Every structure is written in structure tokens, then in C-alpha cells.
């Protein structure tokens, strides 16, 4: 084994290395710790790319983006108490999400409250009920009086739910249990919220009107590209195999009437910009939101129940100065004439002779 290289290697003088083991260990440990310190500092100072350290998952970021810390959060669904009050809250929630069944006598179209107040009235910027609750009673120019929450909800039934074509022919009368249950639900949603304040997320938000205004033809393109897949090419929504509206109709006899807030372009634009397409809020530009809002509100829908004389008289009395196409001629047709009830609603409407005024 005389030729074994290891034998030769062992010939190397070792003096230079004597005592080197300990020193080397100290250098090694010291250098290692220094590296750790450097790396920690680098991470702390955020100079390391995030993918390298796998920190900050995109989910956390999304959550942070959609629910800022100062956003009011309503109580969890399963936190409704087991009590007579809790029962009223549950009934209110059932009316809110399934309005045509649980308040069906006063619903003259195919909508539910939760079609516009998303997530059962919980979602910010889709007119959440916790934010609305703490701002009433309040003065509204729409009817020039102080409105209680009951007055306000009565307005929803009259216009957004188109109560004129419902079996009862009008909204629930004052003092109806429907108001008790709905208000119980709103009050519960606003648990622990401060009162008489404008909470973050109230209403639908505001989208400034573009300088060049809006354009119906562009709106039609935006609609075809972004809305038709759910609401249908004809805007009449889509039903499941049992005939239930999975996607609500946006115009026509089963949609909101000409008195509803959503028939105003600025309101619809704000709702659309901040909520649509579902799961992609904010994906449309302000211009696109205005164009498409104007497009869908340029179609005929049930008549304004306040109209007693001509359309022009009603326009001057109730729509003057609003961002609305009511009473205007679009594509050669005067808007505001009304669609009449859908066949399904006509079948359940009280006959004119039986339609005595509600007490």
C-alpha cells in the first residue's frame, strides 16, 4: 500500500494546523450566527422577495384588502339567539333572502331583497342593512318627510319589489309583522354598531359621472361581454330547472319598477362598479359601469306606481334632475310607459273589482 495517496497526504506537516480545530469551530459558529443575523435583518427589512420565504399568502392579502380592520362586521349567522327575538330575526332573514315566498303577497316581480343587498344584507357597498339601520329615522327628499325604517322598507316593497302587481296590490300596511321581522333582522345585524353614524361600506358607494357622460351602444357591448353570461343576453335573468331565478332579471316585467332607486343610472353604476361581476368587484372602469348601467336602465320596466297623470307630469314631479332615462325618448320609444305584470304575476293579482284599497 505504499502508493496509497492518503499515505502521502499524511506526510503534510501539521504544525500550521495545531490548535486550529478549536479556532475553526469558533470561526464557523460565529460566521454561522452572523449569517443568521444578516438573513433575519434582510427579512425584517423586506428586501427578500416574498416567494423566497413563502410568507404572506395571497389569501391573507385578499382578506385584508376586502375587509379592512375598521370595517364593521355583523355577527355570525349561527349567532342568532334562541329566543322569541331570535325567532323574529330568523323570520326576517327568511323574508330578506326569499322575499317572493315569505312576503309573497306584496312582491310583484321576480326579485328578493338579497338580489341587491348581497350576502343577506351583510356585504359592504351593497347597501348593507347594518349600516342602514343606524341611520334611521332620517329625512329623505324622495318623499320629503322623516322616514322611519318601516317607511323606508315600505318604499322598497312599493318600487324595488313592485308591489303594485302583487296579490295584495301594494306594500305591507304599516304595523305588519313583515316589518317587525325585517327590522329585528336589521337590528340584530347592527349589533354593537354605533348609532347615527355613516359606517364604512354604507350604501352602494359613489362612482363619479365620467366627463363625457355615458353611451348606450358602449353599454350594450359591456353588457354582452360581462353580464350576459349570468343575466342572459336579453337581461331577463336565468332560472334553474325548477323555474327559480338563479340570476335576477334586470329589466322587463319581473324586475324593479321605474320608481326604484336602481332605475337611476348613478345608483346602478355604483352597485355595478362595487359588486359586479360577482366575485370580481371593481373590474369595470367607472366609464364602463356608467355605460352599462345606462344601458340596462334604458329598457322598459313596470310603471312608476306614483304616476297619476302623464309620464311627463310624473317625471317633473318625481324624477326631475335625476340621472334617469324615465320620460325620455330612447331609440324612438318613450320610456316610462311600463311593461304590465308578467304572466305569472298577472295570474295571482287581485282582480280589479276585488282590489279594494288596503286598510
Amino acid at each position, binding site marked *: 500500500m505504499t502508493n496509497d495517496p492518503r499515505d502521502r*497526504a499524511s506526510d503534510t506537516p501539521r504544525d500550521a494546523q495545531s490548535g486550529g480545530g478549536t479556532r475553526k469551530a469558533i470561526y464557523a459558529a460565529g460566521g454561522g450566527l452572523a*449569517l443568521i443575523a444578516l438573513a433575519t435583518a434582510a427579512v425584517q427589512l423586506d428586501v427578500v422577495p416574498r416567494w423566497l420565504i413563502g410568507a404572506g399568502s*395571497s389569501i391573507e392579502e385578499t382578506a385584508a384588502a*376586502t375587509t379592512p380592520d375598521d370595517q364593521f362586521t355583523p355577527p355570525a349567522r349561527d349567532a342568532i339567539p334562541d329566543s322569541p327575538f331570535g325567532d323574529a330575526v*330568523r323570520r326576517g332573514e327568511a323574508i330578506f333572502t326569499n322575499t317572493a315566498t315569505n312576503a309573497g303577497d306584496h312582491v310583484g316581480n321576480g326579485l328578493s331583497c338579497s338580489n341587491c343587498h348581497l350576502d343577506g344584507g351583510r356585504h359592504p357597498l351593497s347597501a348593507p342593512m347594518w349600516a342602514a339601520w343606524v341611520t334611521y329615522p332620517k329625512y329623505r327628499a324622495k318623499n320629503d318627510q322623516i322616514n322611519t325604517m318601516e317607511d323606508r322598507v315600505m318604499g322598497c316593497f312599493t318600487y324595488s319589489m313592485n308591489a303594485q302587481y302583487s296579490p295584495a296590490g301594494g306594500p305591507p300596511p304599516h304595523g305588519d309583522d313583515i316589518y317587525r321581522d325585517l327590522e329585528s333582522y336589521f337590528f340584530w345585524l347592527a349589533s354593537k354598531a354605533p348609532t347615527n353614524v355613516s359606517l364604512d361600506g354604507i350604501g352602494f358607494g359613489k362612482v363619479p359621472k365620467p366627463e363625457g357622460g355615458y353611451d348606450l351602444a358602449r353599454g350594450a357591448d359591456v353588457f354582452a361581454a*360581462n353580464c350576459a353570461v349570468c343575466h342572459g343576453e336579453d337581461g331577463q335573468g336565468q332560472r334553474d330547472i*325548477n323555474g327559480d331565478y338563479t340570476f335576477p332579471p334586470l329589466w322587463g316585467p319581473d324586475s324593479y319598477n321605474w320608481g326604484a332607486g336602481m332605475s337611476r343610472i348613478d345608483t346602478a353604476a355604483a352597485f355595478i362598479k362595487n359588486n359586479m361581476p*360577482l*366575485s370580481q368587484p371593481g373590474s369595470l372602469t367607472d366609464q364602463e359601469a356608467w355605460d352599462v348601467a345606462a344601458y340596462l336602465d334604458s329598457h322598459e320596466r313596470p310603471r312608476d306606481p306614483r304616476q297619476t297623470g302623464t309620464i311627463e307630469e310624473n317625471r317633473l314631479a318625481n324624477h326631475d334632475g335625476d340621472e334617469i332615462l324615465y320620460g325620455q325618448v330612447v331609440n324612438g320609444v318613450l320610456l316610462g310607459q311600463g311593461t304590465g305584470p308578467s304572466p305569472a304575476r298577472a295570474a295571482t293579482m287581485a282582480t280589479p273589482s276585488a282590489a279594494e284599497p288596503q286598510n
Partner: protein
Amino acid sequence: MAHKSDPKRPAEIYEPYEEQAGVPLPVIWIAIALAFWGVLMLYDTGDSVRVSLNDRAEDSEALANVTPDEGASLFEANCATCHQPDGEGLRDAVPPLAGSEVVAAGPGIIARILLRGIDGPLTVADATYDGHMPSFASALSDAEIARLASYVTTRWANGPDGAASSADDVTDLRGEVADLGSFAGGMELARLIPSLPPQPPMPAPSAAPRDDADVLQLVFAGRDEVWSCASCHGDLGQGDETTPRLAGLPAAYITKQLHDFREGTRVNESMHLVASGLTKGEMTALGTYFATLRVPSNAGAVLSGDLARGEELALQGDWSIGVPACFTCHGASGFGVAPGFPGLAAQHAPYTAAQLANWAGGERHNDPLGLMAEISGALSTQDRRAVADYLATRPPVPAVAATMTRMETDDDQ
């Protein structure tokens, strides 16, 4: 041979070797740093693992506390999305249980309906519904159906007839109704329940493509490059594992997927090969064929997903991560809304989870507006497993020929 005497040349016996060099100090530094970091990470994740183990233990305790055969929870989980928690149904769409003459007929009838489902017009409580109720035979056990039938009768039937139904009764019933298919609307129910009000007539059956010899040939035998559908998707289009269930999916949806496979806008090698050999007409015919199949579910929760979380995502969504409820778009109970939104009920969990992962990763991108890419991306792996498992436990889509025919006409326009 000059080099033989070259003095610089080492001896023939010389073997090259390397001096034993010490490991450079910086390498040791890095090694020590990495070792230290590793230990730290082990300690850190050990903590997370312990926390998640505790969470899981708590979850399973919570699950165990819900008695699986409790009628109220069974109702909530299986009936409430359509009939509503208060049993009031949906106007113009789903009949109420409260005040229903059918419910008043007793638990035996309810159990039969649960086992068979209904497919046809029905008049109850002074209103007529074009009802399509799924069969729960493959989704619920005999004991669960018995418990549910008793619960529904006791809660909503007027009078003392709300007698209990036993699991044995249901076992007998199951054999009896096995080959009967769904109830043909109120007409057939009226034969069992004399007290029903007058029932609307069944519409004439539309021409079913099931008898089309060419379609059957494709489905069961295939043709050259086109393997038979049944060879992977099963004789009844029921699918398995990562091969999707086709039975009951909207016809236009199936047709579009075949088209996308051929064009390469949806990527799958086998399906690309198959779809490339099909004509447009055959794609449409196959879509129609599978859309009309009313087939029991063979799917189940096999991914150990958290079913409660899955139910939450399907029914309520999780708005804190920007995810709306699945059923908001795919229809109550996940029966689908043609043509853009396929049925999800009774789909195989591995397939659903894989598709969600594909959307999140960008491998699948043939959905409208990229809706599924964003939603899937927001879901964690656990969420995807949870929702896939939950959907797999749902009763299968009650396939309907009538709706399908209407939809097809729409498509042609």
C-alpha cells in the same frame, strides 16, 4: 518515443490523487446557519401542527355531537336549500311542505318520494309547480330516509298521522321502487294519495335522443380514434374518481367542453383525441344524450375534507376572501344553470378538486369571464377538498328532458 525519457512525466505507477483540503469556512458558516434555521422551522411548524391537530380534534368532536340521524339536521342539510328552512318553498318554483296535501299523506309517501324523486307538474296547496326533485336513494341511508320522512310529517302534516317510519320499512320500499324511476308528477302521486287535489296532465315526452342508434354507437362502442364514452365515464355516464360524472350536466355545457377539448382551449390529451374525431352534430347529440340521464350517485366524500366548511362555501360562500356561494351561480342544490354553469351535485370529489386546482393554477381557463380562476385561487387546498367533498355527497341532478329541449332551441337562435 521521446516522451519515454521525459523527466517531467510521472512514473507509470503514479495514481492521481487530491490533497485532503479543509472545508472552506464560509461553507461551514452556511451549513451551521441552515441547520439552525432548520431546527427553528421544525420548532415553529411543530407548534402549528399541534394547533391544527387540536383544531381537527375539536372539529371531529363537534361533528360527533351532531346526531347524524337527527331529523332537523337532516332536513337542514338536504331539503332546506329548495324547500327552505321553514318549509315554505319558493314561489313559482318549489312547493311548500307546510300545508301540502302530499305531506299530509304520511311518512310512507314521503319516503317513497325521497327514494324516487319527482319529475313532472304537481299541484299542492292551491298552486302548480313544474317540479324536479332529485332521488335521495343514493345520498341517504335507509335510517336517514326514515328519520327524515318522520320529521317532515310530524312537523308539517296537520293531524296525528305523523307516525314514525322505520328503517326496515324503507329497506322494503327501496326494493319495491328500485326500478320505477321518478314519480311522473302529480298524476302518478294522485294514484297513491286519493286526497290530492286535481293534478295537471304530464306533458308529452320530448323525443329522447337515447334511441338514436348513432349516439348509442358512440357512447358504447366508439369509432376508430374515438373511444366509447362508456369506457371511461361508465355505462350510465356516472364517472369515477377524476373522470367526471356526465349524467345530468347541461347539454350545452357538455357540447362546449367537447368543442374546447378539440380546439385545445381546455387541455386533456385523451379528450382532445376523442373530440377531434367528432362532428359538431355528434357533440350536440352526445350533450343531449348525457343531459337526460337520471342516474344514481356513485360519488362520495373521499378527500377527508371538512364537510361543514364545504357546506358553508357552497351555501353562503366566504366573502372575507371574495368567494360567493357556489349555489349563487350553479343553482340551488348545485343542479346547474345552463349553459354556463354546470351541475355540481354528486360530481366526484377528486375531479372537482382537480378542476379547482387547475383553474387556480391556470391550466384550465375556458370559463366565462375567468370567474372560476379568481374564485379557485382564493380557496386554500383544504377549502377545495372541503367543497369538493361536500358537493359529492349531494343527491344527483334530476335530469330533465323538457328543460333541455327548451334550452337547445335557445342555443340554435
